[in-house]
């Protein structure tokens, strides 16, 4: 196929936009920074295993402040409905989100934890 020069230039410009805007989106990987949100730690700074962190959350009783005090700052996803999802992550064999173990907490609009789950990491296929 012959590509007209003007069209090619526009194509290149669009491709550069791709590169500049979030590098065509860096999804599927994450930076497991221990200082960043989403790293589960005790108030004294000790890291927590996923199950231990989950055990510190009481369904229907733990408020957001209780959870953040017990296991640290989460990645927070608020919704217009008033529900909020909090996420803690543990890196797996690589930096992909697929390999990461996740603790996911759902807060209902009242501010109390209503659901919690641990998602295991999965091996990345070769």
């Amino acid at each position, binding site marked *: 196929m012959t590509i007209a020069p003007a069209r090619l230039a*526009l194509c290149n410009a669009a491709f550069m*936009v791709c590169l500049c805007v979030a590098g*065509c989106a860096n999804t599927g990987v994450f930076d497991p920074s221990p200082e960043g949100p989403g790293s589960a730690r005790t108030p004294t700074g000790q890291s927590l295993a996923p199950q231990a962190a989950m055990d510190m959350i009481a369904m229907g009783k733990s408020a957001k402040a209780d959870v953040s005090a017990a296991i640290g700052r989460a990645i927070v996803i608020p919704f217009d409905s008033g529900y909020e999802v909090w996420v803690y992550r543990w890196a797996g064999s690589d930096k992909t989100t697929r390999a990461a173990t996740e603790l996911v907490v759902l807060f209902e609009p009242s501010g109390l934890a209503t659901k919690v789950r641990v998602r295991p990491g999965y091996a990345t296929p070769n």
Partner: protein
Amino acid sequence: MQIALVATCTALCAQERPTYALPKVTVTGTSSGPVEKSYRKMVQGMDYFERARAAIAPNASLRFKLLPRKPGTDMDHIVLEVIGSTFDYEVPIAPDHTFVLERNLKALQENAVVSPNRKRLSMTWRTEIRTPGLPPNSRRLGDLRLECQVGLEADLVSNSSLIARVADLFTDNKSYCDRKDSRYLYFAERPVFSVTLVVGARREVLPIDQLYAMASDDPDLKYDLPYCDCEMLVDRTYFLPLGDHSWPDDTRVEFEYMEDRR
């Protein structure tokens, strides 16, 4: 703007970059005109469904679906019409906001539009392809794969920017649905807490960045949302590994909803 721009270039980048891409989005401009679609393109999608269903979703049926995009959009009193140059007729909408299009030669000849009485940007469109008899709160991956393909063939998910038009010259849209990193936006029936793929004894819960339009990894999402047709549906949004064929078409996609009680 980030999502819009990246979505625009998603197809364009497909050949060159093996990395991930943000969701396909609908960017339809700022006109106050109605949300309308080409009848011919929608029939083209129906034709594609008929050709492809035997291999992917042999027992499924196709409907189209209207979804809210802006707060306050009245979804319960929509009048949907097929409008040609010499005729128009109304298309019945089911209570779940789905509808079917009848084939009409005159509508094809007159290049009719399918037009709801709602303003542009107030709603979005998807296909709904369902195999009957599945367990509650579950879908079939093959149905959803075909939804992506038919949706793109019918131009329900489209970009109208110049860059997108250029991208369209170079790519087969439907092939986007078969990429391992495709980011076709699906909307669950209600706000989701988790989505799990199940086939035989194999189960895999989707990571959080496959839910909620990647909100977990995009702190600027709220600024991008006006450009995303997921704007009102973030808590229902999920992606699927459409191009990962280690998950067969018969894979069940199971949903746990936020408001479900255990």
